[in-house]
C-alpha cells in the first residue's frame, strides 16, 4: 500500500474516523445465504461482509474413530486462499495464512463444542462420521477470519446427513436429518492499530494491524478460543478491552445466522 494512503488512514484514525466512514466497532453489512451448493454439498453457505465474500461447504465421510476417542466423530476444517479472490494470493501449497485461518475456525468449533461429537459416532471403535468443512474466499476485501468462521458455522447449520447403505454413503437421494449442532461459537477478531481497537478491518486497514485477537464466544458469553496475531504485544488490560468488545459484537453476529 502506498505511504500516502497509509498516512491518510492513520490521520483519519486520530480524528476518530475510518476510511469508509464506519465507527471503530462497526461491522460492514453482513448477509448470509444458505444452500449455495445444495446439489453437491451436504451443507453450504455464503457470507458477505461488505464486499468480502466467502463460501463454505460441508461434506461427510465415514471413517474409523481415533483410538483416544473411540466413541466420537471428528471434524476437519480446510481454508484455501484462492488466487481468484485477491491479486495478493498465489497458487501452490497452502500458505501459512490459510493454515492459520483453518486452524482458528477449527478450534472455535471443536473447543466450543458446536457439534455433539458423540452423536457423530455410529459404532464405537468402528464407524464414525468425519465432518469436513471447506472454506473458500470469492472476494477478499478484508476480515477473512470472521467471514470464514461465520461461513463455516452457517454451512454446518445448513448440513444434513447423507443416506447410508451397508456402511457406504449413497448419494442417490439426499438425507433429511440435520447434524447435531448444539451451539454456535462465534468468532470476532479485534485489531489494534496504533492506539485504536478496530473490528472488521478492510484490506487497507489490515496492512496497518499491530496486533489482533480472534475471540471465540459462546451463547452464554463464555469464551472458547483465542488466537493472537500481529507483531506487537498486548497488555492484559488491552486484552480485557478487546474481549469485552468481542462479547458485545458476537451478540450482533448471532442475529445474522
Amino acid at each position, binding site marked *: 500500500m502506498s505511504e500516502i494512503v497509509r498516512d491518510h488512514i492513520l490521520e483519519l484514525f486520530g480524528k476518530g474516523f475510518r476510511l469508509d466512514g464506519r465507527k471503530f466497532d462497526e461491522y460492514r453489512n453482513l448477509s448470509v445465504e444458505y444452500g*449455495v*451448493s*445444495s*446439489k*453437491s*454439498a*451436504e451443507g*453450504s453457505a455464503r457470507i458477505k461482509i461488505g*464486499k468480502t465474500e466467502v*463460501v463454505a*461447504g*460441508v*461434506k461427510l*465421510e465415514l471413517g474409523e474413530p481415533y483410538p483416544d476417542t473411540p466413541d466420537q466423530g471428528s471434524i476437519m476444517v*480446510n481454508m*484455501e486462499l*484462492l*488466487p*481468484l*479472490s*485477491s*491479486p495478493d494470493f498465489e*497458487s501452490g501449497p497452502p500458505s501459512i495464512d490459510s493454515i492459520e485461518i483453518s486452524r482458528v475456525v477449527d478450534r472455535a468449533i471443536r473447543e466450543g463444542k458446536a457439534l455433539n461429537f458423540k452423536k457423530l459416532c455410529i459404532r464405537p471403535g468402528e464407524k464414525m462420521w468425519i465432518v*469436513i468443512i*471447506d472454506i*473458500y474466499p*470469492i*472476494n*477478499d*476485501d478484508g476480515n477473512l477470519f470472521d467471514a470464514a468462521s461465520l461461513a463455516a458455522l452457517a454451512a454446518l447449520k445448513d448440513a444434513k446427513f447423507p443416506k447410508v447403505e451397508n456402511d457406504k*454413503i449413497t*448419494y442417490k437421494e439426499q438425507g433429511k436429518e440435520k447434524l447435531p449442532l448444539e451451539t454456535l461459537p462465534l468468532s470476532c477478531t479485534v485489531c489494534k492499530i496504533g492506539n485504536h481497537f478496530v473490528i472488521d478491518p478492510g*484490506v487497507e486497514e489490515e496492512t496497518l494491524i499491530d496486533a489482533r485477537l480472534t475471540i471465540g464466544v459462546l451463547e452464554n458469553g463464555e469464551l472458547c478460543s483465542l488466537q493472537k496475531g500481529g507483531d506487537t504485544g498486548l497488555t492484559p488490560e488491552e486484552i480485557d478491552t478487546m474481549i469485552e468488545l468481542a462479547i458485545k459484537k458476537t451478540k450482533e453476529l448471532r442475529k445474522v445466522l
Partner: protein
Amino acid sequence: MAYDKRLDGRKFDELRPVEAKVGVVPRAVGSAMFKIGKTIAVAAVHGPRELYPAAFQNPTSGVLRCNYNMMAFSGSGDRVRPGPNRRSKEISMVMEKALMPVVDLSAYPGSVVDVFVELIQTDAGTRCAGICAAAMALAHAGIPMKDLVSSVAVGRVGGKIVLDLSKEEEDYEGHATDIATAFSIRTGQVTLLQMDGPLTREELKKALELAKKGCEDIKKIQTAALKIKYGDSK
C-alpha cells in the same frame, strides 16, 4: 429403450436455464459468474502482471494462463481432494487453447493474464461453463478480444443427438457420448473439441450444428450480462 423424452423434460435442442453476471469479484480486474442448470462457475482475471519465473515470459506477447479448480464440496458424490490433479490440469490447458484464438495479448510482452475458474457446484458441463465465465471475465477486464467464446456440451444419449447434457444424461445406460465444444461465433471457429465415446461422422456434423446454435444463444446471454454492467450504447 429409445430415448424419446429427455430425463429432465427438455427438448433435444434446449439448453438448461442459463444465468450470467459480471463483476462478481470486485478485487479482480475482471470477473464473471456463469450458471447453466446446476453447474456454477466463477471466473476472475488478474493482470496483465509480470510473469515469474522470468523464463516463462514471452518477450513478444503476454501469456494467458488458466487455472480450473473444483471446490472440495462441489462434486456429485464424495468430497474432491483439494489441489491440482491430472484432470484439472488438462482442463486448464484446454481452456487456454479455447480462449487464445480470440485474445490478443501482443500489447503486454513479458506479462501474464491469469484467469482463475472455480466451480461452486457441478452437474456436467463444468469446463464449458468455465470457458463461458472466463471469456466474460476477460471481456470485463478490458483485454483486447476479437470475439467472446461460448461453450456448451453436445452428445449422443440413447441414440439421440442432444444439446447440453446433464449429469444424469452423461450416465444414461452407462454409455452416452459427450462432446465438449466451444465456438467463436463471429469467426465461426471451433476452439474446443473433446469427445468421449463413439459417434458416426454424420452424427458429429449434426452435433456440431446443434452446439453452434446453443453457443449462439449462450453468446446472447453473455453479451447481455456485459451490457448490463457497461450500459447499452444504443
